[in-house]
């Protein structure tokens, strides 16, 4: 089959690899119909998260049709022919954490748990196509994927709804929603969201669903800010103002937003000397993460407010304003999304027509163009917001 493989920093390539096989009784094999490039894949593309290996298959946002199931998968849970969206987190469903619905903290799905434990103390769940530290599972930017614990994660999708509307249930829609849930929004709240990529876009809409009065979205690309405005947000282009924190103060009568969301993560950009210093430190591996947005979130948040972090961080970040965090009595909520809590309710919202997630798609391409699309997406060329790949289309059809 065709698969997008990580061949080194800035090197993606579409390779012919063997088809996946059932390896465990609770596995299923999915023939993939749609698969996406996620903003978090760019951290791997840029070589910033350790424990990738040349030849690793990328991708964690995919859907398709079940073509084979393992011996322990009950037909009432999942059977051949089912159309499914596969969540990016892998969960066994039976450990303490799964039973607490902390699915992304599953104890039994990461075979390389001990690498993550070295770095983080304890290991989160396995993830598709996202480093060996997170399990080393082959990802879904391919024609087929093996899905472990297939009786827990995959969400069955009725026929008749196009892929474009539901494929983002695999990650970014629930992740944006989870980011908004983590803001602890009360009716009338003001929420500031840094990052107007796909997760930020879904977070904006989710914040309104959860009762926010105002959402203020922050980015530097006008086409993304326009999309945020279409979602009902007020916007700040941080390159056009002197100081984002002061601007937020001015917009909120010197109170500050009730919640601040970092939907950017470890590769944040900025336009101040601190940003330059972080770039240097990251380049020399003195810190893994550039927490420019996280710092601003903590500074800008109102006293007693909540900082929500759906943006991906991988290791260590410097100069976090802990004094502000402590003295203002802030709360921080974060985590890889506990996918299974949100997929079904959000599917219902899509079915009822409350939201059509396909609005974020800017590019539909055949899988062969994945290497080029990684570059386009990373460099924000061609108004790129979200790339959906068709694993079966040929390059000439594009």
């Amino acid at each position, binding site marked *: *089959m065709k*698969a997008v*493989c*990580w*061949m080194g920093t800035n090197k993606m*390539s579409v*390779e012919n*690899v*063997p*088809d*996946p*096989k059932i*390896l*465990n*009784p*609770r596995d299923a094999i999915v023939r993939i119909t749609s698969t996406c490039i996620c903003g978090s894949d760019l951290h791997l593309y840029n070589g910033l998260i*350790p*424990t*990738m*290996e*040349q*030849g*690793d*298959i990328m991708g964690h946002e995919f859907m398709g049709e079940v073509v084979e199931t393992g011996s*322990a998968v009950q037909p009432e849970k999942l059977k051949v022919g089912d159309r499914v969206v596969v969540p990016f987190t*892998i969960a*066994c*469903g*039976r*450990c*303490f954490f799964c*039973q607490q619905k902390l699915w992304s903290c599953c*104890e*039994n*799905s*990461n*075979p*390389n*748990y*001990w*690498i993550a434990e*070295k*770095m983080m103390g304890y290991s989160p769940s*396995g993830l598709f196509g996202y480093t*060996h530290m997170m*399990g*080393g*599972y*082959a990802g879904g930017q391919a024609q087929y994927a*093996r899905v*472990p*614990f297939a009786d827990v994660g995959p969400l069955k999708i009725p026929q008749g709804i196009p892929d474009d509307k539901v494929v983002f249930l695999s990650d970014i829609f629930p992740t944006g929603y989870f980011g908004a849930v983590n803001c602890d929004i009360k009716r009338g709240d003001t929420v500031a969201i840094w990052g107007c990529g796909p997760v930020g876009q879904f977070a904006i809409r989710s914040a309104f669903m959860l009762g926010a009065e105002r959402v203020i979205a922050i980015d530097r690309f006008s086409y993304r800010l326009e999309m945020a405005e279409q979602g009902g947000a007020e916007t700040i282009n941080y390159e056009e103002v002197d100081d984002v924190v002061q601007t937020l103060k001015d917009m909120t009568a010197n109170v500050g937003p009730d919640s601040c969301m970092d939907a950017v993560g470890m590769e944040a950009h900025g336009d101040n000397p601190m940003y330059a210093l972080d770039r240097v430190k990251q380049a020399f*591996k003195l810190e*893994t993460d550039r927490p420019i947005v996280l710092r601003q979130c903590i500074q800008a948040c109102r006293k007693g407010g909540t900082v929500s972090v759906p943006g991906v961080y991988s*290791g260590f970040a410097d100069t976090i304003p802990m004094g502000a965090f402590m003295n203002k009595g802030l709360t921080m909520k974060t985590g890889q999304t506990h996918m299974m809590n949100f997929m079904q309710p959000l599917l219902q919202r899509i079915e009822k027509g409350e939201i059509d997630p396909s609005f974020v798609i800017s590019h539909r391409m055949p899988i062969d163009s994945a290497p080029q699309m990684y570059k386009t997406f990373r460099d924000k060329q061609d108004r790129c917001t979200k790339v959906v790949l068709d694993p079966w289309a040929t390059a000439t059809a594009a």
Partner: protein
Amino acid sequence: MNENNSNTNLSSVVSNRAWRQSAPWIAGAAMAAFGLSRRSKSGLALAAAGGALAYAGWRANTSESDQFLARGSVLLNCSPQEAYQRYRNFEDLPKFMFHLESVTKIGERQYRWVALGPVGIPIQWDAEIVDERENEFISWRSLPGSELTAAGSVRFEKAPSGRGTILTAITHFDHPAGKLGYAVAKLFGKVPNFVMQQDLRRFKALIEAGEIATTEGQPHGPRSLKAAALKLADPDRPLARSAPMSEILKQQRRTA
């Protein structure tokens, strides 16, 4: 990590820095606990010897009196009864103790253990259950005349607030001489606690999830030459990139 190449690295394996740093108090405490738990004269002797051995034995260079001691614990989302019964079925231990080839019943409470040594060196010992209480604990030791002198215990305790069962296991081996000694060192010598923890995590996975998560046998694109060479040299070694996290990845990976 190059002990594939020759036997001469045995001393470096045994004198592994991390092990040396953590061994004294673990060994002393564990041996004392194990000795006391046996409630016998030999047990008391073992307990008393624990401290002395912990201090002296590990300061010395390798010798035939060295011991490998492993200790680990894990929280299982099941009752002590279920955990005990699954564990007590010794013939099934190789399902999650990947370094074991087989466990065979050879007597009333006696079992023959065969471990997979490196380059075809089998490690075999006969052991008997010296004491056990249903759903609570099992302790065992090797039979006199066995090729290997070993002992261990496993405890099953109810965790608070219905959180399942806390399993605690201790195993120690005398370090035999010669080729067998090398084989034992290869299996358990680097990071005995890590080998133990891997076993217990797999037991947990089997009990809770019904299977052990794996990526062995999944497809991938072309690996680098360096990666292939390293994999050939040591199939269990993770393949590090030249990132600062390579420090983390230097951590030895022995699942045997």
